[in-house]
């Protein structure tokens, strides 16, 4: 009773937003859609929450068909859209009450489910939603999406524009929710957040690149990666662009990640090349790919 997506396609005029997307989310799974702006994540969420009808393909959520059974789905899913969509002129408590009432329940009835999150904003329950900080809005929106005890929770980029500390707190909250038997589909453009999911789909330009667990997905990276550093990063990028054996060279934190197009590549060759280009403090070391490396390699 998770989510099943089969060959879903959707176009807007000529632009293809989703092209033949298929994946399964198991019941109780925390599944991440990882991809940048424009990947099609929001279109997919809108189809799965019955706000948009696909051009082709089928999808079920909690066992219900997204087209035929749209009314049932609406009762059984919680949806937190990317843009803050609560009533700015209602207070925190009024918003929560409103969503509870719409779904024919009360705050008291399902308080247990939201308690963890709601206690953090309860001291501000008489404040208008529009006057909350970003972090508090996010917690209220999540509380409202949960108040009817949904079986499946859809979170569209809940952490975009949120600082790293609040992001970590948010993922901790999701992990606790998962314990309460809720299936969660969450999207994010931050590749490092993939590690918090049970399984992820890398998505870009309307297509899924790969689906697997965060630890397995890096095994799709086809090459040995080296991390490279010298005293002048800008010059290093320029020089690596003209190095004949370069397959890819991208900044990754304090190092550049480099892969070679040659099967016989040796670290010394690169060190020699960089020395002739007058680099100093040269470091070339083998390293493991990250999910972001994998995403970039697969999306080229």
């Amino acid at each position, binding site marked *: 009773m998770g989510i099943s997506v089969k060959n879903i396609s959707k176009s807007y005029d000529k632009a293809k937003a989703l092209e033949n997307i298929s994946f399964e989310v198991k019941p109780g799974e925390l599944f991440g859609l990882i991809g*940048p*702006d*424009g990947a099609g994540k929001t279109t997919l969420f809108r189809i799965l929450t019955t706000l948009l009808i696909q051009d082709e393909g089928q999808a079920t959520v909690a066992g219900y068909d997204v087209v035929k059974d749209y009314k049932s789905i609406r009762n059984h899913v919680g949806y937190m859209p990317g843009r803050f969509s609560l009533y700015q002129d209602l207070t925190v408590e009024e918003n929560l009450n409103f969503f509870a009432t719409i779904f024919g329940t009360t705050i008291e009835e399902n308080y247990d489910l939201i308690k963890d999150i709601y206690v953090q904003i309860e001291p501000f329950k008489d404040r208008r939603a529009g006057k909350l900080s970003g972090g508090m809005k996010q917690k209220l929106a999540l509380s409202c999406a949960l108040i009817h005890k949904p079986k499946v929770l859809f979170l569209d980029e809940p952490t975009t524009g949120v*600082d790293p500390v609040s992001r970590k707190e948010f993922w901790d909250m999701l992990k606790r929710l998962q314990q309460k038997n809720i299936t969660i589909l969450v999207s994010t453009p931050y590749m490092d957040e993939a590690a918090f999911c049970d399984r992820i789909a890398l998505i870009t330009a309307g297509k899924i690149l790969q689906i697997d667990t965060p630890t397995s997905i890096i095994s799709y990276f086809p090459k040995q990666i080296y991390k490279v550093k010298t005293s002048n990063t*800008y010059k290093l990028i320029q020089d690596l662009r003209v190095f004949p054996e370069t397959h890819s060279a991208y900044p990754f*934190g*304090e190092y550049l990640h480099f892969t070679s197009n040659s099967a016989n590549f040796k670290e010394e060759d690169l060190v020699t090349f960089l020395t002739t280009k007058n680099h100093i403090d040269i470091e070339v070391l083998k390293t493991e790919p990250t999910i972001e490396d994998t995403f970039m390699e697969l999306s080229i």
Partner: protein
Amino acid sequence: MKKENAIQVENLTKMFGDFTAVNNIFFQVGKGEVFGFLGANGAGKTTAMKMLIGILKPTSGSAQVAGFDVKSSAEDVKKSIGYMSQRFSLYNDLTIKENITFFGGIYGLKKSAIKEKTQILIDELGLHDEANKLVGSLPLGWKQKVAFSVSLLHNPQIIFLDEPTGGVDPITRRQFWEMIYREANNGKTIFVTTHYMDEAEYCDRVSIMVEGKIEALDTPKNLKAKYKVDSMNKVFLKLARNIE
């Protein structure tokens, strides 16, 4: 050799009623430096940045940007800087060319100069096929690259970038940073905010703001050594909310 400062901030404070959004901050940014301005949401980054670009008056303290005082010479400050943000950069309903012409005009460039700059910019970004397309139809990453180039049209000494890469795909995000490096290499000063901690590592120096104050300011290397961790992400987590 003493480095010339592009930004000089002393005791800068901003109060909204009883609330101190920016609390007596102090820092300098050297000419040609890539300076990362980090902090949690609500730490006061945007308020501080608004004062530096001359659109918000400080309650007390002073700031010199490109040699001009933000209080007494706000208009000169605005002419000497470039600015782009994630939220507002270009007009979606104008084409790339029209945006360049529009902003060139705003910055007071002559028609001939605008024409010349437009050509250079489109060549550099390799956007010949897209030059007459509406900006709204472009992927976010391209839009941000164009916006960055547009913020450079009037040849400013300092460029302020407010979360320029939020949501941008990883490859374009890196191309964007290469543009930043290029400009810094040309002597421009870059003042940038970001929530991507790997990007914090690309900065020459980084400040971390917590509840209105600057809690740390140093090179990424020194910050990591000081807090005995191996990434800027961990430095940030330690400082911003004392989370291990």
